[in-house]
């Protein structure tokens, strides 16, 4: 049988709200297949998002789902993960959600290397609010708030998250959902913070203003600029212009995962308390003591 999405969907809530041809659905399907192929049990998955078109995804998947506030998905996800570290936490959010208002939580999650899979659907625009430029909108492109063409330079989200400390960083696009599934699966299997940036289409808000009003055409356009990493590395700067590399751009396994570090610390603290129970009230003695000298600042 073909892939049975039925088990993974809240079918009574379908069809979903996305525009005809919106790539978000393709990404969601890839994520679903990745989860199934890893043998994940829906009961043990926390699927989290922020606010935006992309962030409507949790409403449709049949598991524990959390649609949070704009830009803050990773903060809720971090709390959720720390409270139940044995469960799988997946976050899916738009480029604005992840990198504009949510940029700080993104880089700090990378830094902590907490075992969460972050799927960024990068359609290079604020889809849901009507097509304002985002931190990934190409230079010169028109947007609701860039009537003269966008002057804001963009982020390379993969570069940024690698520099911030993520230990699995990959990029794919919606014209190849089968490959995308592999990239997402790699991220989900990875122990640590995994970022999968997915180049996607918002023909409605981005395309209509930028000569790509047709979803099928825009998706093909997106595909046409993608270059496999292996090939990318051999290209000249001129050849690279206007293109972007796809594949697993970064993977690192020796950086400690955050939950693990914390629960190790917890164990250590508990051992110390247990040891202390032999010497009476050592726990009490462990409370921070003011030393003989030094300031007592605490301000602002």
């Amino acid at each position, binding site marked *: *049988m*073909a*892939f049975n*999405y039925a088990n993974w*969907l809240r079918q009574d809530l*379908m*069809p*979903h709200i*996305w*525009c*005809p*041809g*919106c*790539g*978000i*659905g*393709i990404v969601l*399907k*890839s994520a679903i*297949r*990745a989860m*199934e*192929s890893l043998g994940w049990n829906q009961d043990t998955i926390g699927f989290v998002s922020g606010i935006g078109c992309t962030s409507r995804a949790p409403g449709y998947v049949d598991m524990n789902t959390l649609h949070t506030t704009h830009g803050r998905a990773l903060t809720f996800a971090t709390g959720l993960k720390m409270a139940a570290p044995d469960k799988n936490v997946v976050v899916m959010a738009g480029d604005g959600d992840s990198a504009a208002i949510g940029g700080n939580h993104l880089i700090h999650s990378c830094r902590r290397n907490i075992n969460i899979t972050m799927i960024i659907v990068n359609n290079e625009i604020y889809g849901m609010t009507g097509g304002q430029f985002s931190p990934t909108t190409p230079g010169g492109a028109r947007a609701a708030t860039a009537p003269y063409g966008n002057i804001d330079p963009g982020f390379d989200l993969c570069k940024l998250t690698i520099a911030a400390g993520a230990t699995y960083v990959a990029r794919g696009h*919606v*014209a190849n*959902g*089968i490959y995308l*599934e592999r990239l997402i699966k790699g991220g989900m299997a990875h122990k640590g913070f995994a970022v999968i940036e997915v180049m996607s289409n918002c023909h409605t808000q981005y395309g209509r203003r930028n000569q790509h009003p*047709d*979803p*099928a*055409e825009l*998706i*093909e356009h997106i595909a046409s600029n993608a270059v496999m990493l292996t090939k990318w590395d051999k290209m000249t700067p001129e050849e690279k212009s206007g293109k972007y590399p796809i594949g697993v751009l970064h993977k690192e396994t020796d950086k400690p995962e955050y939950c693990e570090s914390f629960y190790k610390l917890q164990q250590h603290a508990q051992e110390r308390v247990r040891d202390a129970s032999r010497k009476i009230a050592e726990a009490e003695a462990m409370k921070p003591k003011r030393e003989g000298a030094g300031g007592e600042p605490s301000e602002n």
Partner: protein
Amino acid sequence: MSLVETVSANGQFKLLVHETWCKGCRICVDLCPTKTLAMVESPDRWEGSIVKVTNMEACNGCGICEAECPDFAISVFAEGKSKPAAGGAA
């Protein structure tokens, strides 16, 4: 809008189209390597057309249409198998 699922088969592969969910975006048609699919007029849909299997013989079961439909509207079956032809979970 009626609740319709259509099935086409060519002995090796079977395509199931969930017409109710198809929003007529044309992505599957464009990406199908074998031109198995086409958009056809659908007077009861304001968008004008939805997908139809018009050349089932050609289908090679690659699963691209299934993977690329944003609306969960196409499934590809390898006939007699319980596994997806491709594009599904291993």
